[in-house]
């Protein structure tokens, strides 16, 4: 059944691209909606040409540099954002006074649409990768921060008391109870936060850069080259899928101690 489903999913994909090609190829469908036969292709692109663009990118190797830049920005944004979120989440989670002081600011900063910061980051960090990393960081930070904060608040008081009775001092409590507990919350939000880092990188590139897949899309759009725009979108989608797969693998490796539904034994 599962195998068959896999085949049907491929069939559906082929059907979508087939229909797309049929409806957009100039001269194939009688011009009922548009008077110009090339108009459909102009707006929606043609899958055959889209795949030709992708093929060229990968065969002449121009895409690799852009992919690498986008990946680098994503990884840096995630790493820095997660580290800051973890540190801040631990601090505010453990210090009620600091938490009370910062609460309205955190809420306000989280409510603000972070994308509007992109132009500011361009001014601060230039058109290189760091303005994109900064944008990604602002997106990742809040996801990780809220998760860690919640994680610290929800550490089991029994586990905490037990660890105290076993002789842990304050530093050991932080290292052996709060940190592992918080890290598990970071990992549970891994898919969302890596996705956000990716969004930050691509949006940043789109708004102004000289490298990256977002830059390719922005360039093609400027030239009304809709096929290249779609090619960029497809490459980004595939890239995001690979990234998500990698995250799932990492998650499985790092959270062995976490019960999965099927493994848990009833008391």
């Amino acid at each position, binding site marked *: 059944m599962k195998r068959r489903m896999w085949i049907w999913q491929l069939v559906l994909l082929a059907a979508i691209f087939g229909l797309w090609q049929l409806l957009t190829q100039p001269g194939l469908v009688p011009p009922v909606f548009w008077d110009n036969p090339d108009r459909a292709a102009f707006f929606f692109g043609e899958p055959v040409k889209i795949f030709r663009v992708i093929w060229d990118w990968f065969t002449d190797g121009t895409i690799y540099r852009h992919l690498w830049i986008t990946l680098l920005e994503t990884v840096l944004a995630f790493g820095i954002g997660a580290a800051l979120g973890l540190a801040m989440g631990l601090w505010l989670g453990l210090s009620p006074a600091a938490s009370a002081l910062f609460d309205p600011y955190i809420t306000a900063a989280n409510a603000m649409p972070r994308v509007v910061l992109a132009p500011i980051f361009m001014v601060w960090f230039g058109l290189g990768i760091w303005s994109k990393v900064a944008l990604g960081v602002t997106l990742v930070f809040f996801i990780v921060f809220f998760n860690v904060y919640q994680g610290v608040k929800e550490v089991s008081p029994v586990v905490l008391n*037990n660890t105290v009775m076993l*002789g842990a001092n304050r530093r050991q409590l932080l290292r052996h109870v709060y940190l592992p*507990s918080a890290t598990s919350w970071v990992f549970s939000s891994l898919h969302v936060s890596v996705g956000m880092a990716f969004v930050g990188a691509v949006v940043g590139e789109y708004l102004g850069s000289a490298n990256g897949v977002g830059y390719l899309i922005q360039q093609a759009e400027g030239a009304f080259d809709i096929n290249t725009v779609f090619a960029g979108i497809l490459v980004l989608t595939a890239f995001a899928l690979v990234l998500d797969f990698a995250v799932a693998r990492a998650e499985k490796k790092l959270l062995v*101690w*976490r*019960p999965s539904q099927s*493994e848990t034994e009833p008391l």
Partner: protein
Amino acid sequence: MNAVEFDRITCTFAGAGGSYTAVKEVSLSVAQGEFVSVVGPTGCGKSTLLNVTAGLLRPSSGTVRIFGEPLSGINRKAGYMFQAEALMPWRSALENVTAGLEFRGVDRAEAKRRGEEWLARVGLAGFGDRYPHQMSGGMRKRASLAQMLILDPPILLMDEPFSALDVQTRQLMENELLELWSADRKSVIFITHDLEEAISLSDRVVVLSAGPGTHPIGEFPIDLPRPRDVAEIRLTPRFIELHDRIWHSMKEEVLKGYAQTKNRVSA
């Protein structure tokens, strides 16, 4: 000299609906090497007394003496076994058992050796690399027991440690506890609501009144011979006689406690 001595302990908690006195003017002592069970109706503040002994809770008035010394801060001479799950879920069984040694800075290899030894002693040999969620409720309790006993505390505080287990596992664990205890006769305060469990394990049973303002209303020395088998000793005439006597003194309080709980729920 007594291992634990309560001198008119009172614990009052400030709550939303005014203050609540959980235990009132409790004076109680536990001799060195004595196994004392504390029974009482549900919600009567048994755990409060244990937390005071552990140093996790400061009494509102009164003093606790541990081997003659007034207790301040965490009681370093006591091991605590909680009713709820207290193992660190991110540590394997072995790492959980050796946690206390690690906090004390014991050499890693030495800690591992002693950890393996204790795992074997509680019947978990070969299960050291399992995470808590991969163990059954009984195995987790064994790991908790080893985690506490590896530190060799002269006082053991046990808060209904086996209440979550099924009857068979529970009797098995009770026998094993008695065997481990008889090896070096630590002082034990064992909290339970199960009178049979209390009698079959202890040298002395203390009966508490219903809350609020819980205080001891009776003390019964248990003169059953040791070593005991908890399943068999329940059938002896002396056991039944003791059970009868203690139950009579408890009955009224249990009904009182039950009525209060019922009122609280229906109110």
